[in-house]
């Protein structure tokens, strides 16, 4: 029971470095603007406000998607279609809210089809599209990056067709709650994110599913010969990712109360992959860390917020983001972690010597 705190193992963990990076970025923010950490309560909306709340709130879409992406990457694949599915999800929701724009010409606080259809149909369609990805990978033996490229390219087209290339807007207030409402003083997207993260964590770690995913990711052939139905595992993982993209799409379109087939979820696949990688899950597959992914997603959003907050010209946002991510990734690289772990071991050895 008396297990010693293993400092060198901690220094070798990629998650540790992700947390350190996040804290450093936040400290820089704090140094520049001491009110960066302040959180205030707005009685009129019943919500807490502040930069930190905003970072978590705005990271919701990526965090939710990257929960699925973590599993896909743990299998040794990638899912490029998630951004397009965000657009599909929003398009379907708006389609059901404003079914026939010629009849319902002005947006307002109404929905044409029952609200549950507005929510359920996008999620079901996205889950099916995820299943389609999974089918290509599991049964067709197609590399995930290629298989998901199909929906990445045609997903936005599907969204365009569904809405006749138009951008619908809506004023339906229950729909507004998803992206702009609050619960327990917190913005609704944060609540949804927490539910999703907990659900995925329970599903993977309280059942043996996570172990099966890791096993298939490390060695698919050996896993199959150990009785794991690798195909089923792949199908489930891609379906989960599709479903989560759908949830993310609902949040996104509720924030803007509109569908935007061109820009909704744009580059989300890249952000999600980055979040997973920063979180310490290896692109080659195998062991995955959901907690690390959450931190990774927060880092990405913190950088963006930082850029907005300090008025760095928006043209420079991408370059700035890339710069910080490059630093984080280098800090996490094998030689650097090895170096710090060695130093930590040496220090521990010295400390041990003193004690004696």
């Amino acid at each position, binding site marked *: 029971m008396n297990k010693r705190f293993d400092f060198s193992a901690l220094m070798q963990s990629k998650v540790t470095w992700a947390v350190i990076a996040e804290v450093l970025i936040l400290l820089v923010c704090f140094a520049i603007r001491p009110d960066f950490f302040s959180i205030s309560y707005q009685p009129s909306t019943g919500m807490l406000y502040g930069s930190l709340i905003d970072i978590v709130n705005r990271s919701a879409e990526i965090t939710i998607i990257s929960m699925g992406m973590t599993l896909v990457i743990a299998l040794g694949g990638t899912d490029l279609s998630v951004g397009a599915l965000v657009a599909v999800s929003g398009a379907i929701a708006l389609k059901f809210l404003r079914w026939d724009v010629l009849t319902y010409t002005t947006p307002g606080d109404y929905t044409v089809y029952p609200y549950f259809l507005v929510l359920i149909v996008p999620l079901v369609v996205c889950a099916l599209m995820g299943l389609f990805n999974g089918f290509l990978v599991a049964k067709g033996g197609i590399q995930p990056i290629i298989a998901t490229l199909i929906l990445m390219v045609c997903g936005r087209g599907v969204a365009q067709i569904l809405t006749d290339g138009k951008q619908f807007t809506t004023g339906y207030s229950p729909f507004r709650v998803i992206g702009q409402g609050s619960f327990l003083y917190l913005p609704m997207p944060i609540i949804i994110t927490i539910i999703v993260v907990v659900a995925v964590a329970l599903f993977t770690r*309280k*059942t*043996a*599913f996570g*172990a*099966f995913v*890791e*096993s298939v990711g*490390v*060695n698919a*052939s*050996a*896993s*199959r*010969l*150990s*009785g*794991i*139905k690798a195909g089923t595992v792949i199908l489930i993982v891609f379906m989960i990712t599709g479903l989560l993209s759908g949830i993310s799409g609902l949040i996104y379109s509720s924030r803007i109360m509109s569908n935007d087939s061109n820009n909704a979820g744009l580059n989300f696949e890249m952000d999600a992959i980055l979040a997973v990688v920063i979180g310490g899950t290896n692109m080659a597959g*195998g*062991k995955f860390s959901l907690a690390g992914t959450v931190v990774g997603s927060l880092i990405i959003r913190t950088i963006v917020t930082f850029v907005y907050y300090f008025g760095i010209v928006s043209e420079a946002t991408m370059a700035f983001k890339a710069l910080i991510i490059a630093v984080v990734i280098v800090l996490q690289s094998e030689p650097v972690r090895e170096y710090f772990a060695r130093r930590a071991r040496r220090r521990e050895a010295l400390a041990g010597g003193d004690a004696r």
Partner: protein
Amino acid sequence: MNILEMKGITIQFPGVKALDNVNFSLRAGEIHSLLGENGAGKSTLIKCLTGVNNMDAGKILLEGQEIRPSSPREAIELGISTVFQEVNLCPNLSVAENIFVGRQPMKRGQIDWNAINTRAAELMSRFHLDIDVTRPLSFYSTAIQQMTSIARAVDIQAKILILDEPTSSLDENEVQLLFEVMRDLKANGMGIIFITHFLDQIYAVSDRMTILRNGHLVGTYSIDELSKVELVTKMVGKDMDVIFNLKRADVAPDAPVMLKAEHIGDAEHIRDISLTLKKGELIGFAGLLGSGRTETAEMLFGADRIVRGEIQLDGAKLSLTQPFDAIQARIAFCPEDRKRDGIIGDLSIRENIMLAVQSRKGFMSPMTRQEQTDLANKYIALLGIATPDCEKKAGELSGGNQQKVILARWMAAEPKVLILDEPTRGIDIGAKAEIQRLMLEMCGFGVSVIFISSELDEIIRCSNRIIIMRDREKVAEVEGVSCTQQDILKIIAEGAA
């Protein structure tokens, strides 16, 4: 003259001394066998010479000059080439590209493909191999792949060639071919370090041998100085009789039939095969590589699709479409290629062991962490897996211990039928005997075992009955007690009597 001299090599790993003051010398034009059980320090010594591991003490002299290679690349530049047990080449590149990768001859700023292909063909013909060197490496057998890595070593004019278990996946003819090449290189003054677990091969080809045990040097002997029995005794540190005191499984004549296959066949390899396996019986499969042994085993496990015939387990008809079905029916299969189909390297020993049990239960009824740990620790103790704890990555274990982990995975699944495909390949003699002992113990508990091996002596020693395969057909079935190695070889060579 000594081309290589290693003096007082000491390597400290966390918690253990992997090598303790080991001396080793190699003459030019000599084949020198390096021997020891798994974990004795052979690999560590080689890794130290090839710049993978750093020494904590000692020095290496190459042709009298002190060297200290710090990376495999540096070692290669110094003229030390290694051919590993698992072929370390790019299967999707051609044979010629593999030989010249990283140092392609150039002509006018472009790669000179003609030169590459002609020189590669010349090299391979030196090894009496007349093959198309522009074909991808994966097109050829493991033997040819191995020759390719040797050809690479020869072409960079290595002074020292290290062959780490090169023969473990070769058949008899291929081994002879390799030996010819080795003698040829030796005649040209190359020093060859040869690591193998096959005692016969050591005596067939080496000049001297050095034995390690638990990181210590036991001694260096010339080949006619030690008999096989003395050699094994020195390697293991115990008496040989104790190890080989194995008793064949005791099967009552009226034991019930456990597994019955009638005229089964698959789509491409096997036409028609039948066998019966009694409860607690051990059947050996003998035959050359590619004779259909593995395919038959895979059919019985649902890994290879059966298109004809019928399998009965315990009297009930069994339909197998995937390994999952076989595991549900409590048939277990230890595959031939440990690295590709067996061990899941990045996962812990615990996860590797619990996998088959868990997949039988399905992922919705997970074992708790405590149950997994208990299960793993039970088998670590039972099989004597050498590891500090069950959380170590399985990929970091030695070959014999990995094999034991896979065996543990299947023992934990409590099978009725256990199929073992070359379970003792590439592992040392002590571990080999232990795996044979475990196999026979399982029979004692009423498990029926199918044992596939290329080594006839172990097949004969363990089997109740032996099925002999040739050209993807069963050609004979003989009693284990009454047959000799000669009988089986004759049937393999000439077909059924």
